[in-house]
């Protein structure tokens, strides 16, 4: 299981938790796993999220590998200028 930290705006959708655990070996697994466990997250995830894996912000690539040791943060997707 990998631990996924959430920004607090999402916590009301995951029973108030600030981090949840999902079975995952890639970023794509994480996002699919989150929606499966917490259907309320589908909207925010579809609206666009990035996943920080050990400090590297993954904006698109669902194939990026993760391990149980990875530090993972869900972040809102960047809109730059």
């Amino acid at each position, binding site marked *: 299981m990998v631990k996924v930290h959430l920004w607090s705006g999402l916590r009301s959708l995951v029973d108030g938790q600030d981090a949840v655990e999902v079975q995952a070996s890639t970023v794509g697994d994480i996002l699919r796993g989150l929606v499966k466990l917490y259907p309320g997250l589908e909207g925010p995830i579809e609206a666009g999220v990035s996943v920080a894996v050990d400090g590297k912000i993954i904006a698109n690539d669902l194939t990026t590998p993760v391990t149980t040791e990875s530090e993972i943060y869900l972040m809102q997707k960047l*809109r730059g200028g």
Partner: protein
Amino acid sequence: MALDDTKTKDFKFVGTRPERPDGVDKVTGRAKFGADMTAPGMLHGAILRSPHAHARILSIDTSKAEALKGVKAVVTRADFSTNPTFGPGLTGEPWNVLENVMAGEKALYDGHAVAAVAATSALIARDALKLIDVTYEVLDHVTDVDKAMAEGAPVIREGAADKSVPAGMHPNVVRYHDSGHGDVEAGFAEADLVLENSFKTEATHQGYIEPHACLGSLGNDGKGELWCTTQGHWYAQKMCAALLGLETSQLRVTASEIGGGFGGKTTVFIEPVALALSRKANKPVKIVMSRSEVFRATGPTASTSMDIKIGMKKDGTITAASGVFRLQGGAFPGAPCEFTAMCAFAPYALENVHQIGYDVMSNRPKQAAYRAPGSPMAAFAVESVIDDLCKELGLDPIDVRLKNASHKGTKASFGPRFDDIGLVETLEAAKAHEHYNTPLKEGQGRGISCGFWFNHGGETAVSLALSEDGTAQISVGTPDIGGSRASMALMAAEELGIPYEHIRCTVADTATLGYNEISHGSRVTYASGLATIKAAKDAVNKLCKRAAQKWGIPEDAVKWEDGCAVPSGANAGDFDPLPLAKITANMGATGGPIVGHFEATPEGAGVSFATHIVDAEVDHETGKTKIVRYTVVQDAGKAIHPTYVEGQFQGGAAQGIGWALNEEYIYGDDGRLQNAGFLDYRIPLASDLPMIDTVIVEVANPGHPYGVRGVGETSICPPLAAIANAVSAAAGVRMRELPMSPPRIVAALKAAQDG
């Protein structure tokens, strides 16, 4: 993305300063911008805009306009798709864009488009607008962010809030961000001094010199062509197709030369309108915005209202920091409140930090990105408080920032840990700089600030084709908003080993390459650069294969050196180096054209930091300010073309000077924009600016083959704060509201004098 072959030194071409490839075209007028394109039978479009800040549209009678000689088509909201959708990840936004492009049931701000005309001349089109009869029911309006959140404020759109918004908030609050770590109250209790203050910034426009312009042609068969000035023509293709109910691939979009964007050309405004008019008239339609339309109806940045609290020990250690950031982004969701919040304290390694952001709707135009959206305002508020703490505790502002600076391994204020970053290096370079060590003259003040931006990668496709004469042409999909064609050619020259001058880089149309994300997020030199390097390597592999075939040796027995294929070692055989041009000369007979490709979504953009030093003077009688010296120190990872990097640094500082001192959207009580032109909206003139010195720091980004970090946005993060700190020091009074225009400074001085 794993990088198996990085190179951070011993460059032959990268880091040099060759002439820009678009220079001659631009100074001779040969470059074609948005308004420069014409087509046979072309009509001219014009757009009718709401004079009201908030009004229900009861009816639109276009019959008189349609009867005017020369008018060929009139469109309203009914001429667009009723169900704009595309792809995952953008649910809701196409609808918002459509609602902004052409009003539906309500006009939501002064300048909101309500109808459009195509006619045989621009004059007839404008005359026809006067014949369109719109009946409005004027509604109460609100344009200030704090007032828009307050009880009793007019509701812009009921039900627009997402699930992040806490219960009980006004319906105009549509998104909420809350993040941080540690225990800020415990941190404040440890501090020797805690300061808390509130700050405001006004909306500013990106101020690009080229107004929005396009030429659209769309037939009833659903096939179309669009020429437009844009930062992202694949996005324009996708969005126009969605708004008009087209198949994406049937609309080919070509990006014109671009006269500035800075984030403001990352969306569409007039393009779907030109196409809708064209479809109705069955003729090409050109629309060129006036400057007034640009101000009234295209995206400025968000305005803000912020509360900051920071605790510090006597030795300069920050014990805790918290911030509340309220942003209004016009009559639509999308103000970058989460980025304001996440960037605010990112420069500092904090054990206790908490930030909250609110996205608030008001009766203003839909905000658009503007260089590092949301970050400059946060820095203004946070770095002002840090400056006051330093002053009250008698500490050097750079030493304090160094003491608290984020570095590799720091848990960022927004959560994850930083990889290799260069903040400390920028602070050390600033501290050692002659500017910082030069005493101020009487009456001058000096300000320091750090700034942070994330940077971005995004979908990217590049093709590199070799010509028979041994030259190369690169096709990229990212419009050149900051000199990227030169940078791409330099990186390709480095890989191919042929001169920069023998390489031409072109921004290809949407039919030529795979999807390319917009030129935004400081991504182009990073992502298109990475793709160019990979495409060049792909071409080199194919060149080596041809040489191996010629020599009759295995492919892996050939390597590439200084523009030639050579045997990889003594065992490979004894062959003279085979130059690129010798291989391409007869490539048609040895296997066909040689083209390198790369298509991917690079994910190693690498964040970026900067430190700015500003000296300012203030005329205490008139409130006029003068920036007398300015130095930008920023981490570029690796400067591919240092002159362009310096230009980005200087441009960010120049725009920051305007934002800090003069630029603002001024609304009357009637909710109408009062200063929709450059005479009344004052951007800095050359005579307002000092020479802006630059120092390029290079801490390699591990996510790029040469270590590149984007530089286009971070340069606008520190200026507001650095200038505010300098002006406040010179004025002797803390300025907490931008712009620090002369009337505001005089008022602050008077308030201080009156006690």
